[in-house]
């Protein structure tokens, strides 16, 4: 492991409801290094999606700090947060991942266009990355001409193509069959490690954590346990 890519310090996110205040994220602290792939797990309502939204600069924490490459999200204006999402974060979502009127290649290239880094070599890299993900013959297919698994792989390529510091994945296997789900997460993990990105995957499917380096378990907004030992992680993945 190398330098810290993401640091979360005492983050609290409070929501006001009719029945009072609820801490969806409560005093959470952790860090992720470059080249590290971390799973964020927990039951429904544990706060993992809220945590992911904060890390993605889509939600502002009530208190605490989130630093990406040393830059504090709390000190940023909206325009800076948009720029940060564009330059330093790669994102895959549960569904509706791709822009429907762009082909697989164009979806990946779009991140380069957004970052004003689209050129011939970028186009070549996008095609190579998709080929590496087994989509070499699907470059010109539109999302509705691809299966759910293929779409997720395009989304992974899009999340990585612009060399972001942090790659976030929200339930990337939710709409996939078991075999495809394992393939997608395995490929995702390999690319995170190979490209030295910091990766965080939110999942409710504990079987998928076997490909991660660390598992952060949340419950009621709190970070209740961290699994760092590979044997422990494998045991968790097997449901032991």
């Amino acid at each position: 492991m190398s330098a810290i890519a993401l640091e979360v310090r005492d983050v609290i996110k409070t929501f006001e409801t009719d029945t009072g205040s609820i801490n969806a994220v409560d005093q959470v602290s952790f860090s992720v290094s470059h080249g590290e792939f971390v799973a964020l797990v927990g039951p429904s309502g544990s706060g993992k999606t809220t945590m992911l939204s904060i890390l993605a600069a889509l939600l502002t924490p009530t208190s605490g700090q989130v630093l990406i490459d040393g830059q504090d999200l709390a000190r940023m204006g909206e325009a800076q947060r948009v720029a940060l999402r564009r330059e330093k974060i790669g994102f895959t979502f549960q569904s509706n991942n791709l822009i429907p009127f762009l082909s697989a290649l164009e979806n990946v290239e779009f991140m380069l266009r957004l970052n004003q880094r689209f050129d011939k070599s970028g186009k070549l890299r996008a095609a190579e990355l998709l080929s590496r993900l087994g989509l070499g013959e699907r470059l010109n297919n539109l999302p509705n001409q691809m299966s759910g698994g293929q779409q997720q792989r395009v989304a992974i390529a899009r999340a990585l193509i612009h060399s972001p510091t942090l790659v976030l994945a929200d339930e990337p296997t939710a709409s996939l069959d078991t075999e495809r789900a394992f393939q997608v997460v395995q490929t995702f993990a390999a690319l995170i490690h190979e490209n030295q990105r910091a990766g965080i995957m939110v999942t409710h499917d504990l079987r998928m954590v076997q490909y991660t380096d660390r598992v952060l378990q949340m419950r009621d907004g709190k970070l209740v346990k961290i699994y760092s030992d590979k044997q422990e992680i494998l045991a968790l993945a097997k449901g032991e």
Partner: protein
Amino acid sequence: MYSLSLATYLALKEVWRNRGRFFLVSLVIALITLLVLFIAALGEGLGTNNREYISKVDGQLVVFLEKADYIISASRLNQTTLRAVRRVQGVEAAGPLSAANTAILLPEQKVLKVSLLGVEAGRPGAPQLQAGRTFLSATAREAIVDQRVLDRSDIQLGDTITIRSTQGTDDQFYDLKVVGTTSGQAFFFQPSIFVAPSVWEQVRPKSEAELNNTTPAINIIIVRASDPAQAAQVQENLLASVNNIEVADIPTTINNIPGYSAQQGTVQTQGFFTLLIGVLVIGGFFQIQILQKVPQIGVLKAIGASNPVVGASAIIQISVVTAIGVAIGGLLTYLFSLGFPPTVPLAFDGKSSAFAIAALLAIGPLGGLVSVFYAVRIEPLKALRLS
């Protein structure tokens, strides 16, 4: 600048990849364009047919009988008034205009209804010649005819035409030789034929009481001022010097043509409501489209597309679809106009058509404004159902 090129890329890609759907929207806009351009052309055509002769006369002022309320057919003047008008300071020339309706007999028992106008050659009110010559004398049975008469019949320069005129209780027929042609001289929706005043008095339709009248009746007198810039002063001079008259400038005379203002108002209201319906239809379509695209816009924003990119993309898309629709509509209008008979008063005036096209190009972005505002306010968290 880069945001604009990115927005253009997104907008055009989406239009191209969904060209069937967007083409249908363009067709709707094309139909609205067709309607608006036809209404504009109809308005212009109706207006032209009403005012064409008056708007082209070689004068700045029109003299009416007092209390005629600037209505040509209600005004009756005489030679004494004409002579008095010609003596007023600042009047360079004055010409009488006598107007009546008649019909030219055509082969196969058909008739062509025309306005019969009595004018003095070389005086204000006489038409500008397109071909041929003017009347040789004040009594010569000669006529100058509007090009529309030639377009709607087989009559040619040099031919003799027969007009039918009801005088008293009998139909009388008079031959007139076509010695000259003019163009664009419609008067009260009918093409005009011009004759000398005394000929006009002989051949015009008359009531029983008017049968023995030989002095040409005059409806109005058209006045050309020595200095057109001083027309207002000449108007004052006329009112001060000549009894029992009222004087109007050309625009006032046109606006007082019976039904003219109401007709133009009706056509303009139709055009306005057609544009309004266009705004609502286009606005509704793009709003529905934006609602369908909420998750897609959410993804765009989540991965770092800024609001200017999202907003500009929507505006460019609406503008492109509108421009295509207006182009198709313009082409359709042109093709349809080729098939319309000359009796339908359509006039594709450059200025009014350009104004209509500019308004049509504006209705797309205007109609889509609400959807653009909606698009830039979409929150990625809610759009992606992460909240």
